[in-house]
């Protein structure tokens, strides 16, 4: 799920009551299993860039109220449980701050799960993490008045240079404008090295009103900090599509962006674009997608898949969209879906995808291709502001056997308020109760954090497995409603999940661990 998927409301008081009551009821609560696997503190070693967004409790006049916030930064792990340094930018309702980490710690268990505590001059923030490898992982903040989720990747310090950032970059950022309305912006720009951006195109969507493709306003640039933060942490500042960002370099192919205008809050990422001239023929495979955002009625999450034929036609279109508890499935019952796509003239990789279900209507999307197998994706249907990712899908088949193994996951969504989950999922090749997992999560509305919560349930694969599959996860919190997901496998290593419950909007992804 993109960083934009943080929003809003519901779930019955039953849930809150049950969360407060913690373990009880039908299932016998047991202690967490002893973690198994090959991870340890030694696997988190080096410098990592992170980005997350979520909800904070903000006070002003009147009662405290939730507010969107985002943080991005860099931390250095020594492989022995210590964070030896780091820096972050955080955009809160009280302002935008750049803070240095001191005397911080982390711990990784054998299954790749762990905790991270980052201390700065204002105190300590706490996180649960799961490593998908030694170079990447997912993260959720577990503080009382702050919940957030995102990811981190090991940084390549050799790329901490303006000259390293060169070529075409595709970006996707989202957040809240000063008005305040939700906004998603996707596009691409050319970096010529040395901090110069020579051209840029973007499509903005403010509160469900798309801008159409626009050129960058004047003033675009990127520049690594010259005060030491650039060379030490890979931090710089940039003007992209008219917004000012702090950015952290993961490597020459990836930047993490955090908006630094205190009147608004944006975050996202930019990815180096393959240097080819994109045409309709560039899209010639199956694709799976995952988006999140908001609609007129609240949070929205969407996942699905289609096949592009290289000539502008889309077939085998499936979609699951949860719009504030109203779930739309394509093809709809008794309906058929047909679709087309276009790739913009000029070869820059922008394009559109459109499909119509004979019962449910027409769905419109925009994309910018990072490569023929990867794109940023934005829904532009009326009054929907939602964005995410589009990935080439395996030809299949996908089966319980091909998916068997261990996965790191992060889910984010809204029930009564925002909730963020991070953990490990284990899949077996059995066809029945083949999924088990353990997770930590933060329920913002309840102000409660939960650790080592186990779940199990069936992942039901519908052959050939590249379409919608179902994962039902029932936790050891007996009165916590089971999570019902539609699962779209990208391949045997990556799966997109979108919740299809009426009282919760949630989405996320799972990534295979080694």
């Amino acid at each position, binding site marked *: 799920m993109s960083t934009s998927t943080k929003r809003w*409301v519901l779930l019955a008081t039953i849930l809150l009551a049950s969360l407060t009551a913690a373990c009880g009821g039908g299932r016998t609560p047991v202690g967490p299993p002893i973690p198994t696997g090959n991870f340890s503190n030694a696997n988190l070693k080096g410098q990592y860039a992170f980005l997350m967004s979520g909800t904070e409790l903000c006070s002003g006049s009147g009662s405290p*109220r939730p507010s969107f916030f985002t943080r991005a930064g860099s931390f250095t792990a020594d492989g022995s449980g210590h964070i030896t340094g780091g820096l972050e930018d955080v955009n809160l309702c009280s302002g935008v701050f750049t803070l240095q980490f001191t005397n911080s710690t982390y711990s990784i268990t054998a299954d790749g799960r762990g905790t991270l505590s980052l201390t700065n001059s204002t105190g300590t923030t706490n996180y649960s993490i799961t490593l998908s490898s030694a170079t990447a992982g997912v993260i959720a903040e577990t503080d009382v008045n702050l919940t957030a989720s995102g990811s981190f990747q090991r940084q390549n310090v050799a790329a901490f240079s303006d000259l390293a950032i060169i070529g075409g970059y595709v970006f996707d950022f989202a957040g*809240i404008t000063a008005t*305040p309305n939700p906004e998603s912006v996707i596009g691409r720009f050319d970096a010529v090295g040395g901090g110069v951006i020579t051209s840029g195109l973007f499509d903005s969507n403010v509160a469900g009103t798309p801008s159409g493709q626009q050129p960058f306003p004047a003033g675009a640039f990127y520049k690594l900090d010259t005060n030491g933060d650039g060379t030490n942490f890979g931090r710089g500042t940039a003007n992209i599509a008219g917004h000012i960002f702090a950015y952290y370099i993961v490597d020459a192919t990836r930047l993490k962006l955090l908006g630094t205008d205190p009147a608004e809050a944006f975050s996202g990422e930019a990815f180096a674009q393959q240097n080819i001239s994109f045409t309709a023929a560039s899209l010639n495979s199956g694709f799976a997608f995952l988006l999140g955002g908001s609609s007129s009625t609240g949070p929205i999450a969407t996942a699905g898949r289609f096949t592009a034929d290289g000539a502008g036609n889309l077939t085998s279109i499936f979609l699951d969209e949860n719009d504030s508890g109203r779930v739309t499935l394509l093809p709809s019952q008794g309906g058929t879906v047909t679709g087309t796509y276009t790739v913009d003239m000029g070869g820059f990789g922008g394009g559109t995808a459109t499909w119509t279900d004979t019962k449910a*209507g027409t769905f419109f999307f925009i994309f910018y291709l990072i490569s023929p197998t990867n794109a940023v994706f934005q829904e532009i249907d009326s009054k929907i502001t939602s964005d995410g990712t589009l990935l080439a899908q395996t030809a299949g088949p996908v089966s319980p056997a091909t998916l068997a193994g261990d996965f790191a996951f992060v889910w984010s969504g*809204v029930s009564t308020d925002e909730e963020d989950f991070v953990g490990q999922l284990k899949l077996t090749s059995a066809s029945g109760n083949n999924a088990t997992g353990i997770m930590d999560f933060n329920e913002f*509305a309840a102000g409660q954090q939960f650790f080592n919560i186990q779940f199990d349930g069936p992942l039901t694969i519908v052959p050939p497995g590249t379409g919608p599959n179902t994962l039902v996860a029932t936790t050891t919190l007996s009165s916590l409603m089971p999570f019902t997901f539609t699962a779209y496998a990208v391949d045997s290593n990556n799966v997109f999940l979108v919740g299809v419950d009426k009282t919760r909007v949630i989405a996320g992804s799972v990534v295979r661990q080694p």
Partner: protein
Amino acid sequence: MQMATRVRIVGFFSVLLLLLSNIVWAQQLADRPRQPPMRTLAYDATQETVVEGTVLSYTAESATPPIGAHLILQTAAGAIDVHLGAARFLQANNFSLATGDSVRVVGVSSETRQGTIFLVRVIQKGGQSLVLRTANGALLSVARTRALGAQKAQQQEGAR
């Protein structure tokens, strides 16, 4: 290299970059789908109406979508289902609702397969008025309090 020469070279490249940028930026922008027709429950501000009535029931967290607070409002034309967004947003603004309250709502009526839902932008009760949506129709409970502006928002106590 002489300073003047260096300046000329930098100037040349600057002009070149500017030209390149203008070449690209001046290109024809790609067509995008026109604004699609409104889907069910999309907030179309041009269709706003004002409805007055008496609260028959208020549910902070409805089991019926859209998720969030709903009230059933008895109007002259009958009872209608009114969607308010996050109950927490109402609470944070000290706006309470109870059976028997007389309220006035400004919003858009939307037909769904499950019936009509009235999406509220402004709700008034007695002398109290609360804006629930931006003029664009986005729920403020989604957009949150980013634009507290002069209220000088502060983070709750704790680490940043």
